[in-house]
């Protein structure tokens, strides 16, 4: 049990501990009841898990954008949801055009690569524009100010894209090669989900290698620790910040295409929920921490996919899947209470942050 700075237990500590304990009890009891009822087959659990993994990979890619920007600027880029939306929505028109002329059916792999490239470049361009216009002039302003412009930029982009592309839902063309399922170690996995998980893993691996091994990646870590000293090493801090937004934007654009592969549709509002979920994932993993965002994203995806059925079904709650958002955010609240630094994060309170 956590104690306060005086080493004493306060009433709040005791109450929170009791609430946590009670919740843990509900989870254990619910899971036990669900499992003993035998309502779900092993194959169904596997499906839920794989879907959660695919969804979580997308959260993880978006979460990296939040965490990278937080790392160098100590601010939450709330326009990141729209950075995520702008890519796949713009790429949709290219995909539809390529489908209409028959290119996408004839060369599906090349077509997908083109769609992904367009999506990533668009999201990157939007991320860089937001940084240049909405954040850079406010670099020395109090921390609340860029937070407000971030929210403003988010709405601005949403309604700009609504004005450009309309307020309806557009469906991505379906590709024959992405239909059906494959068997991995005896588990049936939808082709789209397998593609999403593998592609996300490749992107995360590349990003991690870049941050750890490249000269620019090391400079990013140096800037994240101490901007002034980084300048004294000859590091151009503005350039590093630009690179950070570009990387986060490109990853969000990639996540957007993967999202469109799973759900098949795009609209101007599509960024909001995944954006908030990915932010949750970033906090869950420890904001500012790159592996943390990946772990947090995957964990959140699986948790909200498997969780509702596992915890709630046995308690007799109908349609538990509709409560997945409630479950996801309840978890966020409890992580913030019991481990504010996240799964892999360091204790922020002791730092200057």
């Amino acid at each position: 049990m956590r104690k306060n700075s005086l080493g004493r237990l306060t009433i709040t500590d005791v109450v929170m501990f009791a609430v946590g304990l009670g919740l843990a009890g509900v989870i254990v009891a619910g899971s036990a009841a669900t499992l003993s009822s035998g309502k779900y087959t092993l194959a169904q659990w596997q499906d839920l898990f794989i879907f959660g993994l695919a969804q979580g990979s997308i959260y993880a890619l978006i979460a990296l954008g939040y965490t990278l920007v937080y790392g160098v600027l100590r601010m939450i880029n709330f326009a990141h949801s729209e950075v995520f939306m702008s890519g796949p929505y713009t790429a949709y028109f290219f995909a539809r055009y390529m489908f209409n002329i028959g290119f996408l059916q004839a060369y599906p792999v090349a077509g997908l690569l083109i769609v992904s490239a367009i999506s990533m470049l668009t999201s990157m361009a939007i991320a860089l524009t937001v940084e240049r216009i909405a954040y850079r002039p406010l670099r020395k302003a109090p921390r609340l100010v860029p937070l407000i412009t971030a929210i403003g930029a988010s709405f601005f982009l949403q309604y700009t894209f609504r004005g450009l592309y309309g307020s309806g839902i557009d469906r991505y063309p379906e590709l024959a090669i992405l239909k059906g399922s494959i068997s991995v170690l005896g588990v049936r996995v939808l082709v789209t989900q397998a593609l999403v998980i593998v592609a996300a893993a490749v992107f995360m691996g590349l990003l991690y290698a870049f941050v750890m091994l490249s000269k620019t990646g090391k400079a990013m870590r140096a800037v994240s620790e101490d901007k002034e000293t980084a300048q004294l090493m000859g590091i151009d801090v503005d350039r590093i910040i630009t690179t950070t937004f570009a990387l986060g934007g490109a990853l969000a654009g990639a996540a957007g295409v993967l999202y469109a592969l799973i759900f098949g549709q795009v609209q101007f509002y599509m960024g909001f929920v995944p954006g908030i979920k990915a932010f949750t994932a970033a906090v869950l993993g420890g904001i500012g921490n790159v592996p943390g965002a990946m772990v947090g994203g995957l964990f959140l995806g699986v948790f909200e996919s498997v969780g509702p059925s596992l915890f709630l079904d046995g308690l007799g709650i109908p349609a538990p899947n509709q409560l997945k958002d409630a479950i996801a955010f309840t978890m966020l609240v409890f992580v913030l209470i019991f481990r504010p630094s996240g799964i892999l994060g360091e204790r922020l309170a002791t730092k200057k942050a």
Partner: protein
Amino acid sequence: MSILVLENIHTYYGEIHALRGVSLSVEEGEIVTLIGGNGAGKSTTLNTISGLLQPRRGSIRLYNEDLSNFKAHEIVAKGVVQVPEGRRVFGRLTVAENLEMGAFTRPLRSEIAQSLEQVFTLFPRLKEREGQLAGTLSGGEQQMLAMGRALMAKPKVLLLDEPSMGLAPVLVDSIFDTIRKLHALGTTILLVEQNARMALQVADRGYVLQTGEIILTDKAAALRENESVQKAYLGVL
């Protein structure tokens, strides 16, 4: 020949007039020390040279090139490199990565490798700790790393801000030994120190700074004998 010349530098923090017309010069191969009490403007002078602070008036010249309009990271590329007060190593980067960041502005791998060799000769301890996170080093080791990191930039002028601060006396001696070694290798150094006694022992010349103004300048040996310097900064009664 003067490498670095400051002429009539005025620096402000908001409305606070921190440097009131500081002029000084550093010759090639020299150690020049800037001594003075707390808040006299010693670190402000170094940060103005490094470009972290913009002077409102006056000029800073390196080999006759005006530096006052360059940004901090560009000034490093020109060859003016600072070891900041309090060491400021990147705690979550390894020792090797910290040194690599020191050489950030240098393009040639072969030359960087050569500098790394020199830094490891000067500080064999850093070689032993190469793969360790800098945050896990002791205070003395961190000071070595901070100096080694700056040397990786191959500075034309090295600015040292309070290198002995917070170190045990035996480590202070070894830091000043290192400064002597660097001097012997021909490095040009501008040294800021609270420990005026040690500073005036290694330096060729010194400036005394008081509330943002240079009140005295002379050969270091002469300053050591100066009565008011002895009283104010050397603790001689």
